[in-house]
């Protein structure tokens, strides 16, 4: 589901960047390349020869090295030990540390890395640890080096240094594939940029001829979006989610971008080509997904006929007449899990009867914002009023008492307890109030009755309240969560990534319920990385970038280009 007919090729001595929103399939594509996933269809060739990787071992043998986002180093071992781990030099059957050190020193010297082979890895900075990872791959003879979000953990200075390292490797004839969503950075270092969207490579452009804004537009896609997204018609239930989505991209490619014309772009000798989704042989002509969206794989993009242009205006009506402010915050600051500031002064308001969307590239403070509003994360500065009480000192219990509902991002960790039954999960968080409790006792009969009613209303299958929640599919689990939170009649509903990973029917159902909550006068704060979802549902949109609000848009004035630019920090003097 995460990859669909994606094709890519890289030439020797080239630096190719792969960009896309979260979930666009970048990492999946690279995992196929590294032998971690096996493609269902399609072919992979290295140096012109078709290959099939059963495991990373095969990929390494073919000269492909991967530097993961999360380092795979043993912190208590030295640089040299980490680099040779798995293929240690030995002398008379014993590990030969001196030889390991000299070999690693030679590799470092050859590629110009300043690393002390005897240093313990846990004494190194993050940037240096990353270099160890790169040296490890090179030491194993990697010709093609794949870096997954390498700058996510680096300081700007370290990022600059990494850029030099990558250029240096390319100059020595190595091939580098850089996965990133930092567009500015990508354009500064890459030769060519491949843009992924919904599991496909939708465009490839020369870095020198492209701007950040154009790339952003390619990433998020443009065109007649509202109303075209498939929603909920139950007749679609039999189709795979990917197949029932309407692709609406083709029309949106800006002039400067170079869509791939029918076939492969092969610059020089093809070091590596990856043809996804297409059975070998059928792959001679690669389709650029167009608005007609007919691919050779049989994934027919549907035009939804009779598809209620969802934003049928009656549904949208309450938005304009938004009521009292439920959440008013100014100057919110909070620290993220990594100890760095995640919110750096956010002002926002959510009123009754409106859906307020938070757009942004992953990791720009959206998650922390939702956690602050639900009492899960403490404010370090700033103030606000939430449903008549202060935002400072909020706890999850207080938030619930005031009428905050929460559909968290990480369902299995935050929203449900898998090992408890469906009805126990329905009660979770409301187990102190009727009909779930009577005094200090749980009210089993009341709980059963309410659960059965909700399972019916939300079409949860199977409608068995005693089943352990883990036995439900992800979509049904999410319905249970949404049912629980909405049944509490929240005055403010905080939803984070409410439809991620759900199939099309469940997506539509959940979105319809959010609109219904708005219609009943609730305020909804919607955080989603899926910009389409944010735009389709929200009456107003705040754009977050690096913990600050960099844009505020009100329906119908959604200028997506401008939105995309704001998501990447434009208009703040930062980018």
């Amino acid at each position, binding site marked *: 589901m995460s990859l669909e007919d994606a094709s890519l090729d890289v030439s020797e001595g080239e630096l190719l960047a792969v960009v896309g929103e979260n979930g666009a399939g970048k990492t999946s594509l690279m995992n196929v390349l590294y032998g971690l996933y096996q493609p269902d269809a399609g072919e992979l060739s290295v140096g012109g020869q078709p290959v099939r990787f059963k495991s990373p071992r095969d990929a390494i043998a073919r000269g492909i090295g991967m530097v993961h986002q999360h380092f795979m180093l043993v912190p208590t071992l030295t640089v040299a030990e980490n680099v040779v781990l798995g293929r240690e030099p030995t002398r008379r059957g014993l590990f030969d540390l001196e030889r390991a050190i000299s070999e690693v020193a030679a590799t470092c010297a050859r590629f110009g890395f300043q690393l002390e082979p005897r240093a313990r890895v846990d004494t190194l900075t993050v940037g240096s640890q990353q270099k160890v990872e790169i040296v490890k791959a090179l030491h194993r003879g990697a010709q093609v080096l794949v870096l997954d979000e390498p700058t996510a953990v680096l300081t700007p200075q370290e990022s600059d240094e990494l850029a030099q390292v990558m250029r240096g490797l390319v100059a020595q004839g190595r091939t580098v594939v850089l996965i990133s969503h930092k567009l500015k950075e990508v354009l500064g270092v890459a030769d060519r940029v491949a843009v992924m969207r919904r599991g496909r490579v939708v465009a490839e452009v020369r870095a020198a001829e492209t701007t950040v804004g154009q790339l952003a537009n390619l990433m998020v896609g443009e065109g007649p979006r509202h109303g075209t997204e498939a929603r909920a018609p139950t007749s679609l239930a039999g189709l795979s989610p990917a197949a029932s989505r309407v692709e609406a991209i083709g029309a949106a490619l800006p002039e400067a971008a170079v869509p791939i014309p029918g076939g492969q772009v092969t610059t020089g000798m093809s070091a590596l080509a990856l043809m996804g989704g297409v059975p070998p042989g059928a792959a001679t002509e690669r389709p650029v997904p167009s608005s007609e969206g007919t691919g050779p794989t049989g994934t027919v993009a549907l035009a939804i006929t009779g598809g209620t242009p969802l934003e049928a205006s009656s549904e949208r009506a309450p938005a304009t007449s938004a009521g009292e402010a439920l959440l008013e915050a100014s100057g919110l600051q909070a620290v993220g899990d990594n100890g760095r500031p995640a919110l750096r002064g956010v002002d926002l308001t959510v009123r009754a009867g409106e859906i307020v969307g938070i757009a942004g590239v992953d990791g720009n403070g959206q998650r922390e914002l939702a956690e602050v509003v639900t009492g899960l994360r403490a404010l370090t500065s700033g103030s606000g009023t939430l449903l008549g009480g202060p935002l400072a000192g909020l706890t999850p219990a207080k938030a619930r008492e005031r009428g905050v509902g929460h559909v*968290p991002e990480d369902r299995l960790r935050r*929203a*449900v307890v898998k090992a408890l039954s469906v009805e126990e999960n329905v009660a*979770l*968080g409301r187990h102190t109030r009727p009909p779930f*409790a009577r005094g200090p006792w749980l009210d*089993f009969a009341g709980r059963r009755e309410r659960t059965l009613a909700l399972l019916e209303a939300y079409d*949860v299958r199977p409608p068995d309240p005693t089943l352990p929640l883990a036995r439900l*599919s992800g979509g049904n689990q999410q319905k249970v969560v949404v049912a629980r939170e909405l049944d509490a009649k929240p005055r403010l509903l905080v939803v984070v990534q409410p439809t991620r990973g759900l*199939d099309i029917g469940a997506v539509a159902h959940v979105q319809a319920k959010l609109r219904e909550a708005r219609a009943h006068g609730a305020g909804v704060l919607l955080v989603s990385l899926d910009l389409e979802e944010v735009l389709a549902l929200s009456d107003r949109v705040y754009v977050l970038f690096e913990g600050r609000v960099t844009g505020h848009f009100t329906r119908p004035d959604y200028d997506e280009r401008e939105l995309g630019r704001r998501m990447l920090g434009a208009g703040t003097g930062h980018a």
Partner: protein
Amino acid sequence: MPERLRQALPSVLSVLLALAVCWSLIALTMTPGTATAAYVEMLWGGIGNWPAWLNGAAATVITRPLGEAAMKAALLTLTGLSVAVAFKVGLFNIGAQGQMILGALAAAVVGAHVSLPAVLHIPAALVAAALAGAAWAGLAALLKLYRGVHEVISTIMLNWVALRLVDNWLVIGPLRGVAEGGQSITGTAEIQATATLPRLLGELSRLNLGFPLALLLAVVVWLWLERTRTGFETRAVGLGAEAARTAGVPVAKRTGVAMALAGAMAGLAGAVLVLGTEGRYPGTLGAPYGFDGIAIALIGNNHPLGAMGAALFFGVLRAGGTRMQLLDVHKSFPELIQGLALLFVAGRMVWLALLRRHEAAASVASVEVPRA
């Protein structure tokens, strides 16, 4: 209730397998006849020699063994509950032994040095023991919540601290008892008659109030976990702490309370031992009922009633174990059976996986319900 049965099945199978293995061991080293006879002796030693009674022996051939079994079962139930309750909130309480030592000491001190009528003296001694055990377990909970110390490490270490503190200092030092003649004795002073747990069958057996108390507590703990708001919160914390926190459950409080309750159960085991059987804190507490509690809880699937059932079963076996000596079979076989059963239960994931595979073959389609 097939789901309940399936939960219990691995434990039952494990115990049966352990019985079979031990029988084989005896049969191989001696004769199969001896092995069977030893098991029969063990049974009569645990549940009473009914055939002898039917043949006209005194009622004590039944009441004495049953009383011994009940007293062992009471202690195992309480320590088993201790481990099981901690487990429900997601903690592994290895410290029941230390908590029991502190509880036993508190009961001995209150029993000997406080003068009250029996209706108040017994509850006072029991409460003191429960509080002492709770405090000792509470230390581990505080270390966990505020310093991130893993409870397995802290409770193991607190066991040793308790042992050294009580056996190697308090009991032979400040709290050492003095006999009436003035000569010193080992252990603390005798408890007063008003603090002694009354025997329920008089001279017929040593069965005392501790046994019904343990059973009652097992039922109360079960009801608390299953039927009350706070019990539900406790289980939710154990099964998904982050989800519980998101739902507004005070996770630290629930963890602390459950751990304190675990300590209280172990402390009560110490009190039952001192007030019911020993009459004072002896020089050393002897039997490691606290460690047995780990086995009992696990064999009982960390369910309060399951732990009670396991405790009753092994109470019978262990009371009867001494009778095996009549046939030159060592009396520690019941403990070996318990240990093996624990080992097999630890493999419960394997049992369940086997069961599941068996079922999955039958009903692949019904597990994942297709789509919304």
